[in-house]
């Protein structure tokens, strides 16, 4: 849900309430004002009538037209309350309109010079309150929707205008990837919140980048620094093994140490490779023929794993050409091949399909479906192969993302398959 939609949704109900309350108050106020005005008019009229009645002996004691009427009758002085005005609403049948019309009536009493008391009733047509209420109701309804539309349009416009820098910032953030050098984002806004958000984000991104670089640097340096000690250990073992006094059992022990060291060397090399890929230290690219590369690698791998008697099904529909670093291409395919060989069982199957932009390798395995989330993370060993470094697929992933090759894992018909989709 967009922020503008959210805001509008949240505005609807309070706006409704406010308008409801306001319209009620408005109605009461208007009615009160109208009554007030009518009363004033009636009082003025009353004064006029009384003055005329007291001075003019021919004065009509009753009069009526469409708008106003009055009646005067003599009353017992005992019932006359001389100083008071009574206002009330009533209806009168108007012949011209043939219906009852609302009227406002003022009843009062006066005394002439002779001491006789009279009751005067003055009435004037007034508003039809129901009509009024209805009119007000409909105007309010219209106002509500018009207001809503206006708010909708205005907020939409305002949001779009004022949030442009925010969306710019968001897009910039989406483009940020650790290890990728991203242009600095210049925010064009005077809004304080956005400015400080921008500042905070830029600082955080900067900090992250620094930490990432430090970490990368650390891995690289550590791996580099390990090379010489590893060389010393290997070479000392070699010297030791050349010693003629060495017995076969001792040689066997040395061989075992050797194997362990070799694992460390391999891991170290993979770590170095990973950090070099991430540092983009493989700038030179050529047009690599994946089919040829695969044949070349398959030959050596088959020789290496011939004991496993794996069945290789190769389906080459087209030639797959990719512009990339040749040694990385080799590492990429070699890692996938090795994966397929190592996690296989004896007399299992490896199926490789190559089309113009797709390389798919599937293998049988005793392993169940692999966890996609952890598949490419470093040192994740899901399989059964004990002496794997757990870096092979991390390297594959790293190379794929460097060249924007899409990689997908699937488990179908008891086959694990990796599919590379090239962007050529």
């Amino acid at each position, binding site marked *: 849900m967009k922020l503008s939609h959210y805001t509008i949704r949240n505005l609807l109900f309070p706006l409704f309430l406010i308008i409801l309350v306001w319209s009620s108050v408005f109605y009461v106020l208007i009615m009160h004002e109208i009554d007030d005005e009518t009363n004033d008019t009636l009082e003025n009229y009353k004064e006029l009538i009384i003055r005329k009645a007291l001075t003019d002996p021919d004065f009509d004691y009753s009069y009526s037209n469409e708008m106003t009427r009055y009646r005067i009758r003599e009353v017992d002085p005992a019932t006359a309350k001389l100083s008071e005005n009574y206002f009330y609403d009533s209806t009168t049948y108007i012949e011209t309109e043939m219906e009852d019309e609302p009227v406002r009536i003022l009843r009062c009493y006066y005394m002439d010079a002779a001491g006789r008391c009279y009751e005067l009733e003055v009435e004037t047509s007034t508003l039809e309150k129901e009509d009024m209420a209805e009119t007000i109701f409909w105007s309010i309804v219209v106002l509500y929707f018009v207001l809503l539309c206006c708010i909708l349009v205005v907020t939409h416009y305002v949001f779009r205008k004022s949030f442009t820098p925010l969306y710019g910032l968001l897009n910039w953030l989406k483009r940020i990837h650790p290890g990728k050098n991203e242009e600095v984002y210049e925010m064009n806004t005077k809004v304080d919140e956005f400015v400080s958000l921008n500042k905070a984000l830029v600082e955080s991104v900067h900090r992250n980048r620094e930490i990432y670089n430090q970490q990368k640097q650390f891995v690289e340096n550590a791996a580099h620094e390990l090379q010489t000690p590893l060389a010393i250990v*290997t070479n000392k073992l*070699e010297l030791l093994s050349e010693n003629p006094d060495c017995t076969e059992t001792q040689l066997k022990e040395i061989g075992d140490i*050797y194997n362990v060291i070799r694992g460390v060397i391999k891991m170290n090399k993979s770590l170095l490779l990973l950090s070099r890929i991430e540092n983009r230290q493989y700038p030179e690219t050529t047009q690599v023929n994946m089919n040829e590369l695969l044949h070349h690698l398959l030959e050596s791998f088959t020789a290496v794993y011939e004991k496993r008697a794996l069945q290789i099904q190769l389906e080459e529909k087209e030639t797959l050409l990719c512009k990339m670093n040749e040694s990385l291409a080799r590492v990429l395919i070699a890692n996938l091949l090795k994966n397929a060989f190592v996690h296989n069982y004896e007399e299992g199957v490896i199926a490789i399909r190559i089309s113009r932009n797709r390389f798919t390798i599937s293998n049988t395995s005793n392993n169940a479906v692999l966890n996609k989330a952890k598949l490419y993370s470093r040192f994740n060993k899901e399989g059964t192969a004990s002496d794997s470094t757990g870096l092979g697929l991390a390297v594959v992933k790293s190379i794929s993302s460097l060249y924007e090759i899409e990689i997908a894992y699937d488990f179908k018909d008891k086959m694990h398959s990796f599919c590379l989709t090239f962007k050529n």
Partner: protein
Amino acid sequence: MKILVIEDSDSLRETIIRSLEKERYVVESAANYQDGLAKVSDYDYDCIVLDIMLPGGSGLALLQELKKIRKRDSVIIISAKDSIEDRITGLDLGADDYLTKPFHLAELNARIKSVIRRKQQDGDLDISLENLVIYPDRHTVYVDEQELVLNRKEFDLLYYFVINPGRVLEKSALVESVWGDYIDQVDSFDFIYSQVKNLRKKMKAAGAIPEIKAVYGFGYKLVTE
């Protein structure tokens, strides 16, 4: 044959020296840029084993100096850096070979021998061991002047054995030298067993005196008695 080892790690330097002395080379050493440069300027060596990261300066700079004074000493760079640019820079500057740490002493020995052999340039040089003669450039082997036909891998294996006679060779050293870089993904080196078996059979059939012996759990050794 005189060899200069320029390497700042004492332990590694000592190990290399001990290994080379076993091969009956005269070995001298330097631990930093200045000592290395002084030795290189004053004496001639058949081969210089040169580390890149040295206290006092880069090995690559030393290599440049060496070429400036027009020395024809062969240079093998040993470096912890395995980047292609460094390799190319080193070779462009006139190094004869580039070895990434960690390496096998047997491999270093093989490279030194090959570099020295190439430098002597007296046409087609052969390596002989008892009744076995190898012509590395032509990829041919003769036993008692009879050609022994080997495939490419078998030849490379035999060459590595012959260049390191009497030395116990660890399986992975053999594999890495013969099968090259891309095989380092492989977990098990058992496959070398059948390759060596074939080679051994062929050598025996041809009547070669040198014999490849298995060292259980470790690797192989070429013996000549």
